[in-house]
């Protein structure tokens, strides 16, 4: 009964939820496993601080929240501060390295950073930073397969933006693979 709890945290507008959707869709539709995504907003539906919780498991998911994630993905300093205490003792941290400085990292935690915003800016759209992070996640963890992730990605982004997003995903994926390889 394998189950992975993932928490993705960031700010409204960073596309936190969409990155959760891509992961969940990849797992539950294209990898044939089960996934439950929970999203949380700030006041009413306006955005601001924002996070997603994804559980990916072989069996159907009962309790839908991720109290202690196996993997924490953070795209803002606030999210890091807020969620780092909840990360599992041996958990994995993935972070946007220009926005987050992982201080007081609990011992045992493995941490990988990526300059996702700069990569996104290089690709011409700051907004794809979340897709870079998704690729990074796939590259580092392998929790979702590359094929499934790309399919999920392509079925989730607006028409006409496919190649931009695929590029962003791949940049993140490769950055992840290379960090893991180096580690």
């Amino acid at each position, binding site marked *: 009964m394998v189950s992975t709890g993932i928490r993705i945290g960031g700010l409204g507008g960073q596309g936190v939820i969409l990155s959760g959707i891509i992961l969940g869709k990849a797992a*539950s*539709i294209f990898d044939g496993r089960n996934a439950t995504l929970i999203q949380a907003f700030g006041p009413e*539906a306006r955005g601001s601080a924002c996070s997603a919780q994804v559980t990916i498991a072989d069996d159907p998911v*009962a*309790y839908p929240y991720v109290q202690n994630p196996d993997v924490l993905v953070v795209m803002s300093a606030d999210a890091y501060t807020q969620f780092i205490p909840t990360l599992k003792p041996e958990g994995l941290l993935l972070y946007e390295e220009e926005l987050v400085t992982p201080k007081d990292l609990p011992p045992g935690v493995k941490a990988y950073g990526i300059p996702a915003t700069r990569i996104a800016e290089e690709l011409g759209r700051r907004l794809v930073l979340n897709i870079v992070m998704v690729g990074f996640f796939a590259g580092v963890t392998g929790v979702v397969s590359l094929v499934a992730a790309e399919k999920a990605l392509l079925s989730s982004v607006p028409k006409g933006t496919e190649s931009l997003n695929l590029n962003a995903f791949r940049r993140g994926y490769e950055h992840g693979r290379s960090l893991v390889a180096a580690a």
Partner: protein
Amino acid sequence: MTADPKGVLTGIHFLDGDHAACEGALAAGCRFVSGYPITPSTEVVERFAQRIPMVGGVFIQMEDELAASITMLGAVWGGKKVMTVTSGPGLSLMMEHLGLAYITEAPCVFIDVQRGGPSTGLPTLPAQADMMQVKWGSHGDYEIIALCPNSPQECFDLTIKAFNLSEQWRVPVFLMMDEVVGHMTERVVIPEASEIEITERRWTKKAPGDYRPFEACADGVPAMTKAGEGHRIHVTGLTHDERGWPALTPKSQDKLIRRLTNKIRDNADALTDIREEECEGADVIVVSYGITSRVASSAVLQARAQGLKVGHARLVVAWPFPTTRIAYLATQCRAMVVPELNLGQMVHEVSRAVAGSVPVLLVDHAGGTVHEPQVILDRILEAAR
């Protein structure tokens, strides 16, 4: 009758509960939605607004919930299957029209995506604290049907069921979602249209002269018509006779209100839909509904892992309350545990059904998130002692 393929998005999707409920409505034949935005329910109507032009029908965002809830009733008599969607504060504004829908026997579906209350409360966070409101929130005596999905798949399935029951009994039916179910995203399988059973409106076959719009058929439910068919009906929120004409006497009140009530009360057992799991021979039975049932599941599994005999009864239909079945289950166990995201609502019904035969332990929660499974587990352990 099976579903109109136009509205059915057959396939495997990764949808949140709000979107899934919208697809359920479209599959059920809903072709008219009047709404007013409110977190965390808005996605339902947003999707409907997006989808309906290609399906054929109308979405209109009204100026407020008062309007949204009665515009839908106008559309019923224009012949459409209809729905409105809201959350607590909006629901509080719909209470008068719930009564109108009820007394005029207008088939219609209300979706309530519950958030933390009272008042503006916690707009983006979950609760299950409107459960009593839908049963008692409008003045006067009335009965409704309320369904409680616990996943996006059930948001789809039970929305269809809600429409079907509403047509069958000509009664407002509530889909009691909550913020977690509404915003939780999971795989949703939408079957072929031909596999989806749909209850058609009970159109009268009678000619204008013979038709009495509020004359009950054998099952207590009158056949319907719509405006424009020559039946020249009168529909009023006043107490009325079988012709629909105002009849302002205690006698007509008794006749009308009892018939309306009994449509549901007499069929409460048939309407019961409890998903039971290991209840026979259990020491403790957990009675839960909606999102809480998934949290309770975790707790129940943990309790079983500790060697306890714990059953789980999940109310898919919360109203009419399954008194008979819960009373029966009480004879099978030594205690019941009722977790809810409120300070005690359905637990009152459980207590009443159980009538003192076993202890009933509430696991309450003020809302804003779901229970910690541990809290429910603790209560199960306490009950088992």
